[in-house]
């Protein structure tokens, strides 16, 4: 692999700074919980389904509890109590509570011991299912083997899950290794997870547990046929980060988009809510063996890719640090970056090579996620196809982990089946003819590429130092990321955040933290 000489002690300094910044946020996280975090506990306890008005039972129960003012102690003890009372399974218990046929929200009259017992039992069940999905995936990857990197990642976004399956299979036939089902525009702002299979969506398909299942089955079929394991991706960003992580784990998803700041910056979701939910969602991902993908690439769509390259690197370091706090291991960190430099810039390719090589060397054991050009894509599909072709070259040359397919119609519409086919045609072509280019070339020392990488590192160090002083939250408030300002108490979802009281109990989280990193 081509290589840029970097000062390892500087890299250590950067990682330490990031860790400090992450830990500051961790304080806020540990003091709070959120409605969606509590709903996640219920889902992991086995509560599923919706009521007559299509409201998920998990939402109904948590709402009832907060109306009763009893949410501060967490949903877990209350639900355990209800189960003791009903003597039935979780789902039935939830249904009777929802129908008002069972008391909920008052622990008086229950023996705390029994409750804790029941909670333990429920939590055990939850963890068992998380371990199970992790093992099922490992087993599949054995059977069908994983393709070599860069992994070819494409999105499907018809709005109709069944149409998505056709498109996904077509893409796999053309070489795709990873399929992402993009969500309908509005979903990330919904404070619940929609239910059941869906066939209507806008610029994407709703993320529902049923849709996860349908697509995963389609991919298992094609993995079998193609003899390579095709991963399934969905998006957990938004108001339901942890809940979607729970649903994803129950359906053997492989990857979730899960960024510490994306929801804040690009969906105007409250930052506390985001950090809190994100932590629990990542704990679940780590246990379920779900890889996370982060969204640094998005910064470059609203701020300049050269000027703000250091914000991408800084964010990668912060995402890594927060992820490690949530027990995620490096092999599960698909840290994001992108090929977004204005093609009018002379020698733009040298900058791209430098940035891509830097990311590669900073996170050697992570399957870093490389995003294609989008912002400067032209509506001239032929010209756009050239941009993607050069992106493909940089990716294989610098040995990226996950390669998002650039699409020639990026500036026009969400990809049609033939757009994806053409995109993969370029990827397969370039990856094959340039497979070993990275091993063939050296970047001149003190050349432009090396100097540029050093400059980005220095700017990053400077920036992280400031962050440590003013705190991450303040930095976001000041618009230091993506040129977007978000107030600490602004955005949606803050009303769903609450301070845990002394009696608060969430045995799933406790157990996950206690067990720590699982390595088999």
């Amino acid at each position, binding site marked *: 692999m081509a290589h840029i000489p970097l000062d390892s002690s500087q890299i250590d300094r950067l990682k330490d700074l990031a860790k400090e910044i992450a830990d500051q946020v961790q304080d806020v996280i540990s003091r709070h919980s959120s409605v969606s975090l509590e709903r996640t506990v219920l889902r992991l306890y086995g509560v599923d389904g919706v009521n007559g008005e299509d409201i998920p039972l998990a939402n109904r129960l948590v709402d009832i509890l907060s109306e009763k003012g009893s949410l501060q102690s967490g949903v877990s003890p209350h639900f355990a109590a209800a189960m003791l009372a009903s003597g039935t399974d979780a789902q039935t218990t939830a249904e009777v509570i929802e129908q008002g046929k069972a008391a909920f929200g008052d622990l008086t009259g229950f023996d705390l011991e029994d409750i804790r017992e029941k909670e333990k039992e429920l939590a055990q069940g939850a963890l068992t299912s998380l371990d199970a999905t992790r093992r099922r995936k490992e087993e599949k990857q054995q059977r069908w083997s994983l393709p070599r990197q860069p992994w070819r990642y494409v999105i499907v976004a018809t*709005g109709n899950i069944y149409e998505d399956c*056709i*498109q996904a*299979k*077509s893409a796999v*036939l*053309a070489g795709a290794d990873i399929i992402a089902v993009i969500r309908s*525009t*509005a979903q990330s*702002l919904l404070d619940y997870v929609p239910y059941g299979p869906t066939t209507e969506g*806008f*610029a994407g398909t709703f993320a529902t547990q049923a849709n996860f299942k349908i697509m995963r089955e389609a991919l298992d079929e094609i993995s079998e046929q193609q003899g390579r394991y095709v991963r399934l991706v969905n998006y957990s960003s938004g108001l339901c980060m942890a809940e979607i992580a729970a649903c994803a784990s129950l359906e053997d998803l492989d990857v979730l988009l899960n960024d510490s700041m994306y929801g804040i910056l*690009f*969906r*105007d979701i409250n930052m506390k809510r985001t950090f809190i939910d994100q932590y629990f969602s990542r704990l679940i991902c780590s246990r379920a063996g779900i890889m996370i993908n982060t969204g640094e690439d998005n910064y470059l*769509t*609203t701020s300049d890719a050269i000027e703000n390259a250091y914000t991408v690197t800084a964010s990668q370091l912060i995402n890594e640090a927060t992820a490690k706090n949530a027990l995620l291991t490096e092999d599960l960190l698909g840290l994001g970056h992108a090929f977004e430099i204005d093609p009018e810039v002379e020698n733009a390719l040298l900058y791209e090579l430098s940035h891509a090589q830097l990311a590669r060397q900073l996170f050697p054991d992570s399957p870093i996620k490389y995003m294609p050009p989008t912002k400067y894509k032209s*509506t001239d599909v032929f010209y756009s196809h050239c941009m993607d072709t050069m992106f493909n070259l940089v990716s294989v040359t610098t040995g990226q982990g996950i390669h998002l397919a650039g699409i020639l119609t990026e*500036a026009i*519409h*969400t990809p*049609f*089946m*033939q757009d994806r*086919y053409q995109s993969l045609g370029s990827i397969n072509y370039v990856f094959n003819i340039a497979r070993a280019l990275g091993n063939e070339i050296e970047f001149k020392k003190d050349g432009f590429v090396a100097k540029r990488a050093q400059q980005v590192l220095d700017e990053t160090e400077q920036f992280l130092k400031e962050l440590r002083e003013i705190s991450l939250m303040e930095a976001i408030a000041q618009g230091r990321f993506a040129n977007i300002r978000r107030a600490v108490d602004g955005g949606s979802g803050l009303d769903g955040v609450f301070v845990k009281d002394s009696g608060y109990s969430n045995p799933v989280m406790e157990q996950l933290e206690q067990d720590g990193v699982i390595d088999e």
Partner: protein
Amino acid sequence: MSEQMIRPYGDSMNDGIIQLSFTLPVEDGERAKKAAELYVSQLNCENVSVVHARKIADRFTYFVVYARAKPSIDYSKVQASEVRTKQMDFYEINELIRAKLQRRLSVVGATIGSDAHTVGIDAIMSMKGYSGDYGLERYPEINTYNMGAQVSCKALLEKVLEVQADAILVSQTVTQKDMHLRNFSEFVQLLEEKGLGSRFLLLAGGPRMTNDFALQLGYDAGFGPGTVPSQVASFIVDKILERRRKAQSAERKA
């Protein structure tokens, strides 16, 4: 204007050459190629040459085709409305407001619905502006309120009334399933309902927007890719002054 019949041009006048690519829900093979050929001939084309056919999914084949399109159209009869206003620069515009309007203009902008794209509206409104052209926020004579994205029609209207806006800038980037149409129209209807139909200058914009299209939607103008803030500001000032003139002469008559 005298008749001017035109057809596509490949390498000689009126050869009618066009390139197509599309996918048909059939298995690849000679019959599939034939189907592609027949299909394109149904699109008023002749000399259809299916140069490429390739299976891209079970029961789907992708084609690349070159053909000669038969129709000619009379270009002299083709009409397209363009935003008509004399283009002024930053200084001229501020000067004109000071001189003629003698008060500051008030402009509210937002990306409505679930659309989260702000780069377009920001390009017009934010200080920085677009491709070297200052954004409206930088105009001393204009008060701008940029509400960002994911703004409901209701919230937008409230803001408009609160700051007594002269002009409203509505942006839509997501066009999938004609989402933008529905959102653009929803806002117009809301104004109608509230009897505010023609009170504000209503501007629409986005990557798929044309002036013709905006007029159909009931907006006063539409702006597409490449628009710079000064074009928008010029239009606003121009129209506001024009409306005032009309109003005044109407008064005089009364």
